[in-house]
């Protein structure tokens, strides 16, 4: 329980995760490289990597802190528009990226303030309203966003030497971003911050009673989670080459949430797997645009139906829920 013991347990934790992390790192760099012959498949891999950054951020908020922000895509969009506008006005993309991501972080932290007062469904609803306002804002401030038409032909960033960076090289940057994202998430969950966030997820009033500054750490979670959203958003715009308010609307927020919930929130690799499965699926269904909506809707319903108790109360490990004692306690609660 002392500092020394917690550091030893920390390093053993890292040893346990080193294998999967190594494999993930190799795959993240190797797959786009191997696919570079087929631009379309490499592109699918790149978009998946961006989604891994996003799901890691969403996982921090939803999986570890127990907040369900349906405005996540909107925050990513703020960063994307910022970075695109700054780059267009002559900034280097490599400066615009952190500035845009930071702007998204600050916006996300401010927009996360309602979570201090609102619990469960009410915060989720509030975040849905915020997402709607952000989308309306993207349409409304047309001088910055080009309104509904969107901004197209966004170039890939400049390379250090001359001209723009090549698409395969950018793939590797996306791989680096995804790996860094996952490593940061692992580091947070293994730290004191992680303990505090999990305590907030499980029972924020009790956490505060135990001396944890809930306000500060919820805001910290929003800051970091929004940073993930922002980095992903800033990378997304030049990679796709086109952004519009629809690129960051509530459906995208729902889909990022779905990847986390589908893969398993509150675990490191579940949401990564969620992105790896669902992003390529959406490409497979690209030609059947409306069918895609229906299938995503069905997936959402499937996730909810298959784990009905777990949506609000954060992590509910299914293996544990089937323990007889736990089942008895649930029955007792239900009987009251």
């Amino acid at each position, binding site marked *: *329980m002392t500092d020394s013991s917690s550091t030893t347990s920390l390093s053993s934790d890292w040893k346990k995760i080193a294998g999967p992390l190594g494999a993930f790192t190799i795959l993240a760099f190797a797959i786009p490289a191997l696919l570079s012959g087929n631009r379309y498949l490499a592109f699918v891999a790149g978009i998946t990597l961006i989604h891994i950054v996003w799901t890691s951020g969403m996982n921090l908020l939803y999986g570890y802190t127990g907040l369900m922000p349906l405005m996540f895509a909107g925050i990513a969009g703020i960063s994307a528009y910022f970075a695109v506008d700054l780059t267009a006005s002559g900034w280097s993309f490599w400066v615009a990226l952190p500035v845009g991501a930071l702007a998204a972080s600050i916006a996300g932290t401010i927009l996360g303030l309602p979570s201090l007062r609102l619990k469960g469904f009410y915060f989720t609803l509030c975040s849905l309203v915020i997402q709607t306002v952000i989308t309306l804002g993207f349409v409304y401030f047309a001088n910055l966003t080009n309104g509904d038409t969107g901004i197209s032909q966004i170039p890939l960033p400049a390379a250090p030497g001359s001209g723009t960076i090549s698409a395969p090289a950018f793939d590797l940057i996306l791989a680096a971003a995804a790996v860094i994202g996952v490593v940061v998430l692992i580091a947070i969950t293994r730290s004191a911050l992680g303990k505090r966030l999990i305590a907030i997820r499980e029972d924020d009033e*009790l956490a505060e*009673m*135990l*001396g944890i500054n809930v306000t500060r750490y919820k805001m910290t979670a929003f800051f970091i989670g929004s940073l993930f959203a922002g980095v992903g958003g800033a990378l997304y715009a030049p990679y796709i080459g086109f952004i519009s308010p629809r690129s960051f609307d509530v459906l995208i927020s729902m889909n990022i949430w779905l990847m986390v919930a589908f893969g398993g929130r509150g675990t490191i690799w579940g949401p990564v797997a969620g992105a790896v499965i669902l992003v390529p699926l959406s490409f497979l269904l690209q030609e059947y645009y409306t069918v895609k909506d229906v299938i995503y809707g069905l997936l959402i319903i499937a996730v909810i139906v298959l784990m009905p108790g777990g949506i609000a109360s954060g*992590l509910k490990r299914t293996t544990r829920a089937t323990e007889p004692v*736990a089942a008895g306690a649930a029955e007792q609660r239900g009987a009251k």
Partner: protein
Amino acid sequence: MTNVLLEARGVSKRFGGVVALKGIDLVQHQGETLGMIGPNGSGKTTFVNLISGHLKGNSGSIRFDGRSIEGRNPYQIAQAGLTRTYQAVRVFGELTVRENVGTALVDAPSALGQDGVRELADWLRIGHRFDARAGGLTLLEQRQVELLMRLVQRPKLIMLDEPVGGLSSVEVRVMIAILAELKSRCTIFVIEHTMKVIRELADKVVVLLAGEKLAEGPPADILADQRVIDRYLGNIDA
């Protein structure tokens, strides 16, 4: 007389038009076990919520350990050494006992070291359950974990809201024995709605009725107090 640990002056609380507490004055000294009794809805839990920072009062002053604590957040009050339990047992049910205790250690300024935690856990007879999921424990065990999570923070004052609520008679005895020993480790403020527990533990009793302090004094005096009999206990043979 020993040091004053907790001092409340004229503490009042309204919920909309309903007055929950009317100008409560109360002093607790270090090492003194203070019991608060009264029927449900008399304002006992509201009082604890005000002290622990879960609610903001409408008027009055609260001082703890020589400093004013009103308007502070619960985490600041907890870090100052004032902790509490809840009427319904409250642990992180999905986490193990070890993780529960780990959470209690993370932001406590003067928390115990590993040996201290072990010693406490063994004293509370809960050491063997460290790897169990807290939500799967019996109610008594959860109450013990609750106490453990508070005590590893080395609080100066612990406020217990109905610590034997829901326990069977055998378990009540276990808990009373634990609390009797706890008196030598930490100052205790205990809420109950019956005299039974209070009689065995408390040095001083405060009777709350409809948000007002009806009487205050040693348990024996309280039982004989005519106002308490008239307004709270009634005719014993009724």
